[in-house]
C-alpha cells in the first residue's frame, strides 16, 4: 500500500484571544483532529464558519504553527514550519493551496503569465526557452485565453482570477492540492465551471485533493470522503455517500438541512 497523500494525527491549534477583561483566554481552534487522504484521493472538510477548517489548511502549508499533533504529506513530516529555503521549496512541490478570495491571492501588478512563470522558474527544471511552452500549456489547461494570460488581475473576472490561481498552484506540479473555499466566492454558474475544471484536473493528474468548504454540494461533486468539523472537533467522518446521505450526527443533519433546495422558501 502506498503512503497517504496527507496524514494528520491529533492536530491541535490554540489561539490566545483577549477575554475582554484585559486578560487572555485560550481558544482551541482545532482540537485533536485526525484524518488521512490516501494517494490520489480526495477529502472534503465541511463545517460552519469558525469551525477550524481554514486553520487546518494554514497549518498544513506552514503559515501557522501547530500547537500539538503531527502532520505528514507524502510520508514526510511537516509538523513544524520550516525556515530553510530548500525544505520550503520541496514542501511546495508536495502540496499547494488555492485560496478563497482570488482578489487578494494574486499580485495586482503581475499578469497571469508572469505569476505562473515565476513559480516555474523556481520549481520546474526547465530552461528559459522551455518555460513559455509550459506556461501556455497550463493556461490552456485552466481555460485561459492568450489575452487573459497577459492581463492583470484587475482586468479579469473572479472566475478568471481563480483560474489563474489554480494554474499558479499547478505550476509547481504538486501531488496534493488544498482548495480552501476555492469556489465559494464565485457565482453559481462560474462555480460549476471551476468545479468541472477541478474534476478534470484531478482526472488528468491523479492529484490528491483536500477540499475545504461549507458547500455540501461542491464536496459531494469533488470528494470521495468527507469530514465534518464543529468547533475544532471532528464530529463525523466517512465516505461522502454515507455521511451526507445518512448522517448519524445531529450537527451534520442540521448542516444538510441548512442547504437551500429547489422549492425551499425562506422562513418555512
Amino acid at each position, binding site marked *: 500500500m502506498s503512503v497517504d497523500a496527507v496524514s494528520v494525527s491529533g492536530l491541535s491549534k490554540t489561539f490566545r484571544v483577549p477575554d475582554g477583561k484585559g486578560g487572555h483566554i485560550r481558544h482551541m481552534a482545532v482540537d485533536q483532529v485526525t484524518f488521512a487522504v490516501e494517494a490520489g484521493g480526495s477529502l472534503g472538510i465541511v463545517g460552519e464558519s469558525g469551525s477550524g477548517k481554514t486553520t487546518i489548511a494554514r497549518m498544513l*502549508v506552514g*503559515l501557522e504553527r501547530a500547537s500539538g499533533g503531527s502532520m505528514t504529506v507524502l510520508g514526510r513530516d511537516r509538523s513544524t514550519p520550516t525556515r530553510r529555503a530548500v525544505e520550503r521549496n520541496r*514542501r*511546495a512541490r508536495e502540496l499547494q493551496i488555492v485560496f478563497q478570495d482570488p482578489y*487578494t*491571492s494574486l499580485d495586482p*501588478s*503581475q499578469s497571469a503569465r508572469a505569476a505562473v512563470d*515565476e513559480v516555474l522558474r523556481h*520549481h520546474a527544471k526547465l530552461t528559459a526557452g522551455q518555460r513559455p511552452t509550459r506556461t501556455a500549456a497550463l493556461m490552456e489547461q485552466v481555460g485561459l485565453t492568450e489575452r487573459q494570460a497577459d492581463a492583470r488581475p484587475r482586468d479579469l473576472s473572479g472566475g478568471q482570477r481563480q483560474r489563474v490561481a489554480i494554474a499558479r498552484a499547478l505550476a509547481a506540479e504538486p501531488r496534493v492540492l488544498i482548495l480552501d473555499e476555492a469556489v465559494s466566492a464565485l457565482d453559481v454558474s462560474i462555480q460549476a465551471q471551476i468545479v468541472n475544471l477541478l474534476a478534470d484536473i484531478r482526472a488528468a493528474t491523479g492529484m490528491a485533493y483536500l477540499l475545504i468548504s461549507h458547500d455540501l454540494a461542491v464536496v459531494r461533486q469533488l470528494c470521495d470522503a468527507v469530514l465534518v468539523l464543529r468547533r475544532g472537533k471532528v464530529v463525523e467522518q466517512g465516505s461522502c455517500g454515507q455521511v451526507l446521505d445518512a448522517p448519524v450526527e445531529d450537527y451534520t443533519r442540521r448542516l444538510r438541512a441548512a442547504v437551500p433546495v429547489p422549492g425551499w422558501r425562506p422562513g418555512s
Partner: protein
Amino acid sequence: MGRLLLHRLGGLAVTLLLSSMAIFGSLYLAPGSPEDVLFGSRAPSAAARAAVARELHLDRPLPVRYWDWLTGVLHGDLGRSMVTGQPVTSRLGHGLGVTLALVALSMILVLLFGLGLGTAAALRPGAVDAATNALTSVSVTVPPFVASTLLISVFAVRLDWFPASGIGTGAGGEIRGLLLPACALAITNCAFLARVTRNALREQLEREHVQTALVRGLPRWVVLRDHVFRNALPPILTAVSLLTSGTFATTLVVETAFAVPGIGQLTITSVAQKDFPVVQAVSLLLVAAFVICNALSDLGHALIDPRLRTAGRTT
C-alpha cells in the same frame, strides 16, 4: 510614455506662467514701492522720484511691465538687481549650484536612512520596529531650524568638526561645509520617509499573495523584491518627490542658519532688501523645483507600471 512626457511639459509651462503672474502681481501690489528701495532713507523730490520711476518703467501699467519682464525672461534676461546692479542671472548662477548640491546631499541622506530604517522596521517586528518608531517619533518633531541650532552647537562649536558658517572651497570643502546643513534638512524627512516606507511595506507584507508566496516555494528575497518592494514603491516615490520639493523651500531657513551662499539665503536677503527682480527670479525657481519634482514622480509611477492605478496609491 511620450504623450505623458509632453503632457507634463505642457503642465510645467502653464504652471510656471500662472505662478509668474501671481509672483509679479503680488510683489508690486505689496506695500513699499521699488523706487523707495533705491532712495533708502533719503526723501527725494517729486521730479527725481518720477525720473527714477520712468527709468525703471514703473510709470507704465502693470500688464505692460509684466509683458516686458516675461519676454526678457524668455530671452534669458531676468533683469538687474536693484541693490547691486548685477544681472540677476549671475547672482542666481552660483547660488543655484550650491542649493542643488545641498538638496541632493540631503536627499541622499534621506533615502539612505529613511528607506533603511523603514525597511528594518517593516521586516523586524518587535524590538527593532519599536526602537525605530521611537526614534522617528522624536525626530519627526525636530524642525530644521531647531536641528540647525543643535547641530551647530554640538558639531561645529563644541567638537569643531565642521564649519559653523559658510562653506569651504573645492569639492571636498564644499561637501564638508554642506554636510551639517544637509543633516539639518534631512532629520525630519528621514523620519517621515521611514514611516511611509514602513507602512507601505507592512501593507504589502500583510497581503495574502505575499504571505502565500513563501508557501509556493519562492525564495524570501524574491518575494521581497518582486512582490513587496515593487508594490510598495508608488507611495514611497510620492513621498520622496514631496520631500524633495519641500526641501527646496526649507533651504531658506537652513541656508540662513549656516550662512550657506545658496538660493535660500539669496531669497531671504533679497526680500529684506526688497530687491524685486531677484525675489521674482528665486520665487519662480522654487515653483519650478516643485513642479519638476512632481512631474518626475509621475513619470516614475508610469515607469514602474503603466497600468498600475489602484494599488498602493497614497492619494
